[in-house]
């Protein structure tokens, strides 16, 4: 931690110096969801259930994309996928 600042120098309302998006919480992950595009029917249930907003729809590529910078590997998407298109794979040590 850098030198602590005084109350006149810091943003009000407890706003951190950098936004939460700068902390890549994906590093907390133990299991990584891996999507098999050939099994995926684009129903987007994974998008609906993802509690972190890490699953998005890439319209140009016609596929579901997982943001590994923020996915914490909770496995809800894999559990909810009706086609078992998502596999939870142990992260490399």
């Amino acid at each position, binding site marked *: 931690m850098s030198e*602590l600042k005084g*109350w006149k120098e810091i943003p009000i309302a*407890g706003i951190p*110096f950098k*936004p*939460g*998006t700068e902390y890549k919480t994906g590093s907390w992950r133990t299991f990584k969801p891996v999507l098999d595009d050939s099994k995926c029917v684009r129903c987007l249930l994974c998008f609906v259930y993802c509690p972190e907003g890490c699953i998005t729809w890439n319209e140009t590529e016609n596929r579901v994309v997982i943001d590994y910078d923020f996915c914490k590997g909770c496995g809800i998407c894999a559990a909810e996928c009706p086609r078992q298109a998502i596999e939870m794979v142990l992260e490399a040590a």
Partner: protein
Amino acid sequence: MTAITKKVEQKLLGLNGDEAVARAIKQCNVDFVAAFPITPQTIIVERFSEYVANGEVDTAFVCVESEHSALSACVGAAAVGARAFTATASQGLALMHEIVYIASSLRLPIVMAIVNRALSGPINIHCDHHDSMAERDACWIQFYCEDAQEAYDTTIQAFRIAEHPDILLPVMYMMDAFLISHTMQNVWVLPDEVVKEFVGYRKIPEVEIPFYGKVPFAMRPNVPLTLGPLDLFDYYYEHKMQQQAAMERAPDIIKKVHDEYAEISGRRYGDGMIVPYKVEDADIVLMCIGSTAGTARVAADLARQEGVKVGVLRIRSYRPFPAHQVRELLKGVKVVGVLDRCGPYGAIGGPLYVETCATLYHAKERPLLVDFIYGLGGRDMSVQDLRGIIAELVDVMRTESPEPTLRFRGVRE
């Protein structure tokens, strides 16, 4: 209220306090209202939902399932930059309690009307100040109104004060249950366009974030900010100090907005912080908040006809507390009777008494101070009761002894 020359043509309407608040909210360009009806605040929500249903306002109105949700929704709305309003009373305010602190610490300029109602138990719907006194230390600006007209005027001023870039604190303003909320009164109402111009639209101030530089202080997807994160021993204190500093800046801005409003409306409430009545030459002063001030002025005038010099000091802004003015105004006063519509329960007196005691401790000449607890659960406070209090204070002045300093007025033995 002191009337000065009216600059703007106004309409005189028969409104109760709740209706006066609803009407003011309708004129204030409010973006978002979330509220849950609770007696005696219900009429505010009812009237305002009528305005929404009739298309008279473009406000987003959310019917929530509780007061905790009402204030939480306002926190969310204010965080994205909306002008947010809610209203509640008693148990509703108590249920909001944790969000009350969150709103002020997130520096969200929410405006909330409170109709002062006793807290359970036993359950009671009538007036006393237990509910808002419980939120006294939550770093909200707190105004206590004396009548429906002041409730209307304070609503309009509240947005300007809360949203001022040097303050950014929420404002709650109080009306006594039924005595103000349900009592029909002649209320002068400003034209819509005049109020709209006075309050304007909510301006989003900038905040300096090391990662970005200067950015708008509002949640925007393209400039993500984190609001309400964990803040431990290394920075929590600094953020609380910022709240304190904002509160210290508040009196000047409250007075300035009050002056500007007086220019267009012709109505003044003292200097916006404190409202003295015949205090300059008084030997005895009755100190109070809320609707009792009017009754106290009548009692003071009657006492003066009998040669007892009585004045009335009404605190309009309870937070920030006008300590300096109290000290100045009470110079030379011999006896002060503090009227508390809230129980002391183990303290040396009610909240206004404790505040006044502490304020006067550093004064060179201190008046004798007596606390009168009154009106709990809506027990009436008549001119006759106040004349009885004045008689007791005359005794205090004669004997030079304030004992007992804590007295209970109007309770049966």
